[in-house]
């Protein structure tokens, strides 16, 4: 058993190193956001800054208008998008899961075919902007690409098929309940696990989305948090590349520490909620993995 103990130690050492490698960038981010600008310019981003300071966060606070606004936008679209997406997905998955549903194979094919073939960015963009005119509206952050997809519907349908006994539905029929009543009063309450899993994936998708904002939004009043972060990141690079004269530090140009602080506030909610939803997420992925 001695070799077994040594194996254990080695394995644990490997994971401690791997974990450290995974966490290191985050640590750097955090500590840099609390470093003074002087210390960053002098010594670069470091785990051990020469000087701590809250100036980055003070700058963010002074910009509360735009940052608070983008936070609000992100929270709004996450809440609305997740609930609407869950509702629509479950509503679509339910008839497909019923064995007595006519045309269910054709309908299922129509739904799942979307996972195989894709129109691509150009048609999607043109349709949303030229036909539906959602450019620079909140709809652009909620609807395109994120509301639901074949994969989520597949997972929910599988859950309905495997975990909702036919007998329950049949006996509800006999009792004279309508389809909608059955769906909302019986099926939904029984489906909390899958709803939580899909809801989580939807929520993270919306929280992290920057792409829709990138292509559909130019009005700064509608920037989501990630979108704002994105613009700031790109802005710096653009300025560095075009090599401005010594007047690089304009009043609006976020400094190094501020960039890090912005990123920190972008991930703090996820980090805070992580312990709570981590179990669900892993479980959901495992179920999804078994399906293939």
């Amino acid at each position, binding site marked *: 058993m001695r070799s077994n103990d040594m194996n254990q130690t080695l394995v644990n050492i490997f994971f401690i190193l791997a974990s450290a490698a995974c966490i290191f960038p985050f640590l750097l981010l955090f500590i840099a956001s609390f470093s003074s600008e002087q210390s960053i310019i002098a010594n670069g981003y470091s785990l051990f800054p020469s000087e701590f300071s809250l100036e980055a966060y003070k700058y963010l606070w002074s910009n509360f208008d735009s940052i608070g606004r983008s936070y609000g936008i992100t929270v709004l679209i996450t809440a609305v998008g997740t609930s609407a997406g869950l509702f629509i997905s479950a*509503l*679509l998955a339910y008839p497909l899961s019923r064995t007595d549903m006519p045309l269910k194979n054709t309908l299922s*094919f*129509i739904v799942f075919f979307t996972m195989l073939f894709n129109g*691509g960015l150009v048609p999607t963009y043109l349709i949303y902007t030229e036909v539906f005119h959602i450019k620079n509206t909140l709809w652009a952050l909620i609807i395109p690409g994120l509301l639901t997809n074949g994969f989520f519907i597949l997972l929910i349908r599988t859950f309905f098929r495997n975990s909702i006994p036919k007998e329950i539905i049949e006996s509800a029929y006999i009792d004279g309940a309508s389809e909608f009543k059955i769906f909302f009063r019986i099926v939904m309450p029984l489906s909390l696990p899958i709803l939580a899993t899909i809801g989580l994936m939807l929520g993270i998708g919306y929280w992290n989305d920057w792409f829709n904002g990138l292509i559909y939004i130019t009005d700064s009043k509608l920037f989501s948090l990630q979108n704002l972060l994105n613009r700031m990141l790109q802005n710096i690079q653009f300025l560095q590349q075009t090599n401005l004269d010594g007047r690089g530090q304009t009043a609006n140009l976020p400094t190094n520490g501020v960039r890090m602080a912005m990123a920190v506030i972008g991930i703090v909610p996820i980090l805070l909620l*992580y*312990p709570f939803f981590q179990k669900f997420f892993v479980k959901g992925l*495992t179920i999804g993995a078994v399906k293939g």
Partner: protein
Amino acid sequence: MAHTWRKVWKTFWRYKALFLMLVPGMVYLFINNYMPMFGLTIAFKDINYAKGIWRSDWIGLKNFEFLFISKDAWRITRNTILYNGVFIVLNTVMAIGVAILLNEVRKKFLARFYQSVLLLPYLISMVIVGYLVLALLNLENGFMNKVILPAFGIDPISWYTKPEYWPYILTIVNLWKNIGYLCIIYLAAIVGIDPEYYEAATIDGATKWQQIRSITVPLLMPTIIILTLLAIGRIFYADFGLFYQVPLNSGPLQPTTDVIDTYVYRALITLGDIGMSSAAGFYQSLVGFVLVLVSNLIVRLKDKDQALF
């Protein structure tokens, strides 16, 4: 004839509630997925906003001519396939290795802790990843240039203007981001292996390494093959976020970081060249679809249950 139609109507009416439930989702899928599919025809048109999409002229394969005459088509195709190919191989090998090791950790709460940490990068957005990489690779202040390189006596490198480093950088970032997620999937498969195999092997005196080689890997093969084939089916689609955000959309890096997805994006949004971007997008959708069909067919031939359809 009338008798059948009446039957159809009766069935539909009986299930009207269920059909009604389908409506919101189907409408969304129609707008979000099917309309764009029909919109692929844009690649064969010369879009004129004054005339609108529907009335613009058909110009046949002209857009494709432009696309393939320029060297762009080869470059973005090569980049996309090479990167994705490396990602598939490297990520698979590493994920299996980590999953096997994770399975070996005796204290389960430790295993869960490690898994949580490894999963964390997967949950943050690519924009944040862009910031993290910036903290490391920034020319004046980055951790690499200020701390690591000086420790080896190397001069600072201008990372964001030198294309040759980026295949490595992007591969590492992609691995860092996805290992936690892949690991969970393979771990689920490993946990499903009957422990009796291992017990019998231990009795026969096999070492851990031998057990891994003769039990774990062969029994994982179905999962590995499925996942790999599915990934190959998607080899024409790159992770837009990775290739756009992390290099900070830097021009000089494009020879090695431009993939089909970023090319389509830049052509459409930045240059407003609908012709080139729609042709490239069509090219991607078509080849991607064929690859998905072929790879799924192969999966189906191997093991019918595992296929997507």
